[in-house]
Every structure is written in structure tokens, then in C-alpha cells.
């Protein structure tokens, strides 16, 4: 009788944990729908951090400067450690040729 209870307990735990596993897996990949970002609307994000809607990082490829903007203020990389990149784009430049990578975090 005792062994039956343990077996049922085991089966129940496995089912429960599998659901938890599937939930974390799928909820995570569904939340980050990359198609919601239009690169043309994000070209105005620049290193002056004057946009307070996004958490983003700009990597300037000409001088390798990295700028991280956290809802409108410039911060260091420790601020974004718990955020995940959800959009990446290699822009050629805004007013002149100055390639940079834009990464948006959520």
C-alpha cells in the first residue's frame, strides 16, 4: 500500500513539474515576439538616451563605444543584467554613415 502511494506521488510530481517546465519554456518564447518591432520606428533611438519607452543598448561599430539607456537615462551594464534582448538590428547610421547595433531589452 505504502509503495503505491509513493508511486502515485512520483507520477503526480512528474506531471506537475513537466507542466511547469513547458509553461516556462513556451511563455518565455511567446512573450518575445520580435515582429512587433519595426526597424524604421526605432532608427531614432540614439546615444543621447532621450527616449524613455525602451531599455536599449547601442554598440557603435566605428569607435566600439557601448551606450546603455534605461528608460531615458544612461546607465552601466549592471542595470540590464536581468533583462533579455528581444530585438537586434544593424543600422548603417542616421544622418551619415556610422554603423551601430541596436539591442532592445525587456
Amino acid at each position, binding site marked *: 500500500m505504502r509503495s503505491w502511494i*509513493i508511486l502515485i506521488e*512520483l507520477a503526480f510530481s512528474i506531471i506537475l*513539474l513537466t507542466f511547469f517546465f513547458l509553461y516556462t*519554456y513556451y511563455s518565455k*518564447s511567446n512573450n518575445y515576439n520580435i515582429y512587433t518591432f519595426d526597424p524604421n520606428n526605432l532608427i531614432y533611438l540614439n546615444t543621447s538616451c532621450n527616449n524613455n519607452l525602451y531599455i536599449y543598448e547601442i554598440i557603435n561599430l566605428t569607435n566600439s563605444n557601448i551606450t546603455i539607456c534605461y528608460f531615458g537615462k544612461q546607465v552601466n551594464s549592471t542595470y540590464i543584467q536581468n533583462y533579455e534582448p528581444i530585438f537586434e538590428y544593424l543600422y548603417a547610421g542616421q544622418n551619415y554613415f556610422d*554603423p551601430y*547595433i541596436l539591442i532592445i531589452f525587456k
Partner: protein
Amino acid sequence: MKSQYILLATIAIIIILSFITYYNLSPIKNINPNLIGKNFEDQITYIYQNFGYNYISNYTIYFQNYTKYINYNFSFICISSYNLSIQKCTGNNINCCYYFNGYFVVNKSILKYCNENFILYNPPNWICFCYNVSNSDSYYINFFCI
């Protein structure tokens, strides 16, 4: 007693797997070859319209390094009536350009990845790209002219 060990082991394995999945969803998995290809296409057009064709070769170098960095394979063949200062195609190499004056016969043997077949005349002036973006799961191939 034995089943309790199995239970503990299962819990441990599933917790470890959950953590691996949680931290492994890197940006690379959220970007697909299609989006990378569109990035290339849009920015080449943007450069041509706003900065001039001189900068195209520079951008392709940056783009190749970028795709390598995020673990994607990217290669292209271009056909241009301008001299873009990208290396000339000799038939075997990739990431190169065919430069022409007068007319140019476009076909699959030249483009390698794209199945296009037509003749380009200049003028008007042309810059065309056939590119291929791939990772271990999928790929994206497209041909465009500006």
C-alpha cells in the same frame, strides 16, 4: 525508499532543465535568418538612397562580422554597374561582385543561391544582391536590386 530517490532525482533534473531553458533563450534564438536578411536588404537600400553607393562595401564588411558574431552564416553575390570596391567574382568565390558595363546576363550559375534569369542593361545603373543567411535550423535566400 528507492522511489523517493527517483522522485528527488526527477525533481532535480527538471529544475536543472528549467534553469537551462530559462537562461538559454539568448537573442540569437529570437532572431531568425529572415529578419537578418531583411536587415541587410533594408540597410543596403537606405545607404544607397541616403549616403551613396560608396558606403555599401563598408556595410557588407560590418554585416559579415556581425552575423559571424551572432553565429549565423551570411554570404552574398552582387552584380553592379558601379565599382563598389568589393572583390571581383571569379566564378568560385563568394562575397564578391560582378561588375558590368553595357549588359549582363543574370542566371543561376552566377548567383549560386538564387534562381533568377534575366538581362540587366545600364543605364539605368544597377546594384543587385543575392544573399544567403543560415543557422543550424533554417535559412533565408533572397535576390534584390536597388
